[in-house]
């Protein structure tokens, strides 16, 4: 991790943000702006999952529960209260973090396969709850009536351009925070646990505490992704909390690369682009997607960024 001063990450983030924000000034493309909005949500979702999968070696199959939880919590807060949007977003992230802490306290007691199963079980529990609690969640119809997009600091999120700008800023700040966590001593601790948990425990690291922290933080950031998703669809649907959505995040992580910080972002971009392009051509987009993932897995044997990192030696991580 040498040669990674914080300012370099911040500079990189600032440049990326400026580029993204400048594009609509040059050329307006509703399809592209939609894409970036959805990517913002998905990138936070997938990168937060990778904090568990890539950094700590904890494969969660139920990460989508926090994405869905975030979307519903935010949608409901906006519908049922008159709180300003940023306050509702912050409250949502806090609530999701708390939920992740509670779920994690149970899940992290189990290791590897059983950890994956119990996270999936919790997700299905939440999904069933959303479906059956009709009076609150609208059941299988989702949250109806839209999310009141109250103006913030002159931003009118009902306008696509403003929503685009808002999502880009939130996603870049969120990713920067996640980046900071992975480069902190705690991030290194997670890698120690992934590499050799027995040795880590002999060094005084309390394994369950580190795992629970990781699970809680990852859940919170997935919740932030859920907020953006809810803003995009102007509501919340049970599909956001369904298990195939967790699968999407796992695909993004594996496709982009688990050992590169930006791997999941790239994976999410590839996945969304494929979805858009392929579903325009054929209704069997799942089939094409499966083939692409199969080809990537068998051909590269690792995520795209991880592959490039190995293929271009001498490049910084």
């Amino acid at each position, binding site marked *: *991790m*040498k040669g*990674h*001063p*914080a300012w370099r990450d911040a500079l990189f983030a600032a440049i990326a943000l400026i580029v993204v924000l400048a594009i609509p000034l040059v050329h307006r493309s509703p399809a592209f702006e939609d894409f970036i909005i959805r990517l913002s949500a998905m990138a936070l979702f997938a990168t937060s999952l990778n904090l568990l999968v890539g950094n700590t070696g904890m494969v969660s199959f139920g990460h989508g529960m926090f994405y869905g939880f975030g979307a519903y919590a935010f949608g409901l807060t906006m519908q049922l209260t008159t709180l300003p949007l940023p306050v509702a977003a912050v409250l949502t992230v806090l609530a999701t973090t708390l939920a992740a802490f509670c779920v994690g306290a149970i899940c992290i007691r189990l290791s590897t396969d059983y950890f994956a199963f119990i996270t999936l079980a919790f997700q299905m529990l939440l999904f069933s709850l959303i479906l059956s609690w009709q009076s609150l969640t609208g059941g299988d119809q989702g949250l109806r009536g839209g999310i009141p997009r109250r103006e913030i600091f002159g931003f009118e999120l009902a306008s696509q351009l403003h929503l685009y700008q808002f999502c880009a800023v939130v996603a870049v700040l969120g990713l920067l925070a996640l980046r900071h*966590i992975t*480069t*902190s*001593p*705690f*991030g*290194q*601790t997670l*890698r*120690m646990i*992934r*590499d*050799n948990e*027995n*040795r*880590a*425990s*002999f*060094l*005084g*690291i*309390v394994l369950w*505490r*580190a795992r629970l*922290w990781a699970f809680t933080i990852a859940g919170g950031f997935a919740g932030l992704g859920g907020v953006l998703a809810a803003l995009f669809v102007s509501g919340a649907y049970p599909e956001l909390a369904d298990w195939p959505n967790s699968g999407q995040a796992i695909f993004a992580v594996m496709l982009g690369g688990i050992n590169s910080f930006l791997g999941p972002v790239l994976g999410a971009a590839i996945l969304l682009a494929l979805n858009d392009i392929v579903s325009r051509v054929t209704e069997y987009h799942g089939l094409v997607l499966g083939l692409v993932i199969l080809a990537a897995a068998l051909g590269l044997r690792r995520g795209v960024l991880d592959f490039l990192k190995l293929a271009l030696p001498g490049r910084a991580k």
Partner: protein
Amino acid sequence: MKLEIKNLTKTWGGLRAIDDVSLAFPSGSLSAVIGPNGAGKSTFFNLISGAFPASSGEVLLEGDNIIRLSKAERMHRGLGRAFQVASCFPTMTVMENLMAAVTAHVGQWGNIISRFPPPGVRERAEEVMELVGLTHAPDVEAAILSHGDQKLLDIAIALALEPKVLLLDEPTAGMGPEERWRMIERVRGLWEKRKLTLVFIEHDMDIVFQVASTIRVLCYGRVLAEGTPAEIRNNQAVIDAYLGTEEHPA
């Protein structure tokens, strides 16, 4: 720091892997633990370091019973160990391994605010790296280090915690004759420089008799004999059970 074991016992079902073992390792001593395969040597180290709980008995560090403490707490009390199969963090470089160990030791492993490594950690890691002699490979990933260097790194990780008592489970395992001597000379050097109470498990009798000041012989989980190299060499029970048999592994 003095390490004392009193009536230590570990049973696995009906098997008494460690059977009422009492031993004392004086402060600053350099001792070897020998015995045939399956004698319980590694189990003995695992019980002292807290890898799994003992069935009964006491482990005293400078008089304090640490048998109820977690392995992490034992490390904080000054007990360090390295493993028979080198145990390090394979995807990290040598420097990262050591900086991670120092970071954990200074209680910064949960720090989410600053960057890794925290201030001062790199210097201490470099110190340990020089001490064990790994300065030729600071940026090499542990997974692709030579076998001998992996064993050294394992010991270096233990030393990063600044132990007073150090347990080395076969520091020369899997090495050729020449490499063994080089390794054990380094170990002896560390013992001198750091004024450690050092206990090592070893199968090479030439090394044991030349390096250790006192020797403990374990057999079937019991203490068969203890004494100076000369005493052990002439002990009839030890010759019958160990030295004179075919069980001397390569």
